């Protein structure tokens, strides 16, 4: 039995197979509409999420399975003080696979140690968000043809932004990737990403605090939201939340075939005026997230 805790749980070949499967699902959805008939997905979400939870639920429903779960800690036994280990042991008797989001880092890993069913990390605090990474990789591969020789700008909250950490971890396995890390000083990527992932693997990167200066170099601009829930101090959040806003004026500095991605939800870091720009791919990205989650569910349930 396999779980998914980090994008690195899959080898590069396995990731390619997963994306091939997602591609086939995208092109022939009818062939997969009953693959999970009789199977149940438990969505255990200890903190609010719309997109990721609904994306998982849509994926399971598209496969002919059913879903059950909770969408906040308040509506689960966690409010009564139940441990993650106990919760997953119980959920293991109710469902065939579990997607778990938790504000505490490492909670899905703890669950996987006790679980009798595959556990998918659907986001753990500021740590990892592997299915978003799978979505990002699948989007890049689908829209660019392959993942190589790209300059990728990661912009916004790179300190607490788990999607960024997971994406960097995954991209360092592809050739010719250059990273441009765009953030205010206070929100730079954690040391372990710089030291253990980028420097250790000899990847080229630079850290800047101006989006305008690097816009023309980028093949992909990955925007992120400054997340209020990751700050202990409200003043810091207010000071940093509007540091970068992508506008049509900034887009004029970019390459004609650059792609703008965003894990969503967006607050105001991308002006709505950018949405009609053909390079704005974040809504397509959200759609692709369902295909890759369908492929993941099938793979972990060993139904392919």
């Amino acid at each position: 039995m396999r779980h998914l805790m980090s994008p690195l749980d899959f080898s590069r070949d396995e990731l390619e197979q997963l994306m091939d499967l997602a591609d086939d699902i995208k092109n022939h959805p009818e062939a997969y509409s009953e693959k999970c008939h009789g199977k149940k997905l438990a969505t255990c979400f200890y903190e609010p999420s719309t997109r990721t939870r609904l994306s998982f639920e849509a994926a399971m429903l598209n496969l002919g399975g059913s879903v059950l779960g909770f969408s906040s800690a308040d509506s689960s036994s966690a409010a009564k003080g139940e441990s993650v280990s106990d919760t997953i042991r119980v959920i293991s008797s109710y469902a065939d696979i579990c997607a778990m989001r938790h504000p505490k880092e490492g909670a899905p890993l703890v669950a996987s140690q006790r679980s009798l069913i595959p556990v998918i990390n659907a986001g753990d605090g500021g740590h990892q968000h592997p299915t978003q990474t799978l979505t990002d990789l699948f989007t890049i591969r689908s829209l660019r043809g392959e993942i190589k020789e790209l300059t990728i700008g990661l912009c916004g909250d790179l300190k607490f932004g788990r999607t960024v950490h997971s994406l960097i971890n995954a991209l360092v396995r592809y050739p010719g990737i250059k990273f441009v890390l765009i953030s205010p000083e206070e929100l730079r990527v954690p040391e372990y990403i710089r030291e253990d992932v980028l420097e250790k693997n000899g990847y080229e990167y630079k850290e800047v605090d101006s989006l305008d200066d690097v816009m023309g170099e980028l093949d992909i601009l990955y925007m992120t939201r400054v997340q209020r829930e990751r700050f202990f101090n409200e003043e810091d959040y207010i000071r940093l939340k509007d540091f970068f806003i992508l506008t049509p004026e900034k887009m004029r500095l970019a390459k004609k075939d650059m792609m703008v991605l965003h894990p969503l939800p967006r607050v105001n870091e991308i002006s709505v005026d950018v949405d009609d720009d053909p390079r704005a791919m974040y809504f397509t990205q959200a759609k692709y997230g369902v295909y890759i989650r369908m492929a993941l569910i099938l793979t972990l349930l060993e139904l392919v």
Partner: protein
Amino acid sequence: MLNISGIHEGFVLDHIKAGESMTIYNDLHLANLGCDCTVAMIMNAKSNKMGRKDIIKIECPIERVDLDILGFIDHNITCNIIKDDAIVEKRQLTLPKEIKNVISCKNPRCISTVEQGLDQVFILTDEENEIYRCKYCEEKYTGQK
């Protein structure tokens, strides 16, 4: 110097930094060895090499103590293994690949700060720079060894 008689089977941990022996006593869980075992701690002894040092002598079956953690605490400690009144091995201390329930994660966002009964586990991620990270949240351990 105060003399402690030799031991038949067990360990002599020498060249411990002065004042550290109690910490090692706790980290090796020597209080739980069993009533047939004897532990002697010599603290603040004179040392040509270190000025002052601590020494721990443990009389017990050698399989009863897991010395892996010593490598994490201080790999300069000399560890002599005694059997039949003679030194049979001078163990070279190395960094353990995993440390369980000796240090704890300081990241307030880590699940290990709230989950009941969860082992505190740290993994050696960079041997050269002696870096350990929490198994759950990957936060680097930066506390005192």
